[in-house]
């Protein structure tokens, strides 16, 4: 037992640990960043899982056919945004319930990605290149962590910093938050509520698509149907965990990345713990985190945007 504990501790304080956590956290961070912006504008898009898996299928298809990671990533972004456009048409254009539409988006995305990806299962691509700066990347310990990642990782951080700057340091960001907190007032002030929400939802879809594309382009160099395995849902939970704040989102995503690592490494130790228990760990952790975060916050002082999930039809 003590020996096993030592082994786990040894694993945690290794460079390998940090590298694995970064790869596991990046798709969560990318998807959750986009969803955070959409939810800040007052739209709850539960279809993240569907947009992500479409991003994975189309991203892989694009990368395989063009032999380029960048084109693959762009295909992923476009696929996610296209799915988000369907969602926006229903929820913003036709004032349909956002929860039900989000579910429909996930069901459609799962099926459509299987259809698109069917021809590509079993194929392999060259995984996304990792940064290599002579001298810096070879540095002990920090070298590979700071200077040896692929573009997705750096992009995920640039994205979250950009979102923070946009939300809190620009006028447009202020308007977006106003729309999410009180759409009736924002409308009365003359802001185009539906147009702002449309842009936010499309941005969220693009991010989810990119997060999905990361999986076959950088995580594993091949596509498997259903490979997102609930990451989209975890990303949704992360936004709640983060109280809709970008800074906390990074912490949350990396916490979940660490859980994933624990799951993988404990399986490798052969302690006799059923692998199924370890596989369900991220989902159990999500429930525990949601309960803890909701409990401490209480229902009254909720940090959620006040108009989140509420249908808006401008009166004329």
């Amino acid at each position, binding site marked *: 037992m003590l020996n096993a504990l030592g082994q786990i501790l040894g694993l945690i304080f290794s460079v390998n640990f940090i590298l694995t956590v970064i790869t596991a956290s990046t798709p969560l961070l990318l998807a959750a960043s986009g969803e955070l912006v959409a939810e800040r504008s007052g739209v709850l898009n539960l279809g993240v899982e569907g947009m992500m898996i479409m991003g994975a299928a189309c991203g892989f298809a694009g990368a395989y056919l063009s032999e380029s990671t960048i084109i693959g990533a762009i295909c992923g972004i476009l696929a996610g945004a296209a799915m988000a456009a369907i969602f926006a048409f229903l929820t913003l254009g036709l*004032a*349909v319930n956002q929860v039900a*539409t989000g579910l*429909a988006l996930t069901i459609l995305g799962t*099926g459509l990605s299987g259809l698109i990806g069917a021809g590509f299962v079993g194929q392999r691509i060259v995984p996304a290149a990792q940064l290599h700066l002579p001298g810096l990347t070879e540095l002990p310990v920090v070298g590979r962590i700071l200077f040896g990642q692929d573009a997705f990782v750096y992009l995920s951080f640039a994205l979250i910093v950009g979102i923070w700057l946009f939300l809190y340091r620009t006028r447009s960001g202020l308007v977006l938050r106003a729309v999410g907190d009180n759409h009736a007032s924002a409308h009365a002030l003359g802001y185009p509520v539906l147009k702002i929400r449309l842009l936010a939802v499309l941005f969220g879809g693009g991010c989810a698509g990119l997060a999905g594309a990361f999986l076959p382009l950088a995580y594993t160099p091949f596509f498997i149907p259903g490979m997102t395995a609930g990451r989209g849902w975890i990303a949704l939970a992360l936004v709640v965990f983060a109280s809709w704040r970008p800074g906390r989102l990074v912490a949350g995503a990396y916490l979940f990345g660490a859980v994933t690592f624990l799951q993988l490494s404990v399986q490798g130790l052969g302690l006799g713990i059923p692998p199924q228990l370890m596989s369900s760990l991220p989902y159990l952790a*999500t429930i525990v985190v*949601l309960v803890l975060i909701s409990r401490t916050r209480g229902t009254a002082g909720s940090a959620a945007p006040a108009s989140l999930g509420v249908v808006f039809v401008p009166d004329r």
Partner: protein
Amino acid sequence: MRLVLERRAERSAVIAIASPLIAIALTLVTVAVLFALLGKNPIEALDVYFLEPLLDPYSLGEIVVKATPLVMIGVGLSLCYIANVWNIGAEGQFLIGAVCGSWLAVHTNGTDAGPWVLPAMLILGALGGALYALIPAICKVRFGASEILTSLMLVYVAYYGMDYLVRGPWRDPKGLNFPTTAPFDPVATLPPLIDGSRVHAGTLIALFVVMLIAVVLGRTIMGFEIKLVGAAPKAARFSGFNADRLVLFTFAVSGALAGLAGIIEVAGPIGYLQPDISPGYGFTAIIVAFLGRLNPIGILIAGLFLALTFIGGENAEIAMKVPLDLTKVFQGILLFYVLACDSMIVYRLRFISASRKASAANA
């Protein structure tokens, strides 16, 4: 000229009835286009998908077999959705119900246990599903955690839990290493209703459930409360109805029905527990609930229709070499159309000209 959404003065009764039919018609057109894109003859495809299963007695039986869990779960979920409570983890409750009921079947296997086994299994299944559904309900009522996310997360947990049992402690030692339990004893299986078909007594239970829920919704205070809380939460609060109790009630009932559907599926058409007992019944039932307009009789019809897409999909895979995922695409598209058409009950689309808009702004 611009297209805008406008609230109707009152709900359109015509569209309320026509909406599921319009949605199905639009889905068929979209599906035909999709088949053409896949390079298949759309007419032939629609025939294989939606007509052929109706002409062959065995396929008809299979439709009933598949509709049984869909209707049972869908009716339970409709209670939640009417009350504006979002249980989307029925798939997990279905699996846990199957596991709880199978526990008894596995442990009485090969003994001379009497005919009490099957009823006890059904009760255990319903109980297991209800308790499993109460986890997200309690998390919501007690801690304010979103029931949407917690109920969905529990689907994955249920799946891995069942996977562990059938690969580990419950695996049939004589089963050539396949991850299944031993076949259930005759006292632990539902009898078939018709010879040469897999239609089983569970279908009768599903029909009874539909009638029961129709009575609860239409004739009891609880049903009134559910409808009121969903339609006018503030009015419900002022009249002293307890919304928390309703969350617990709707989750428990929908979980119990999903769990019952799970054990019926295992004790009926399958006959043993194995990892893939569900082609996503719990999720498809969400579509069934909406397509059925959250009405028990509507759900019965919607369940049969979605069961047809499962059978049609299997037929098309064999006959036309189209991927099975196409069924999920249909189901997703269908739900989109249903939701969009439903919106037209309350709203209407109107063209307004730029000049009229300008004059309205000046007024």
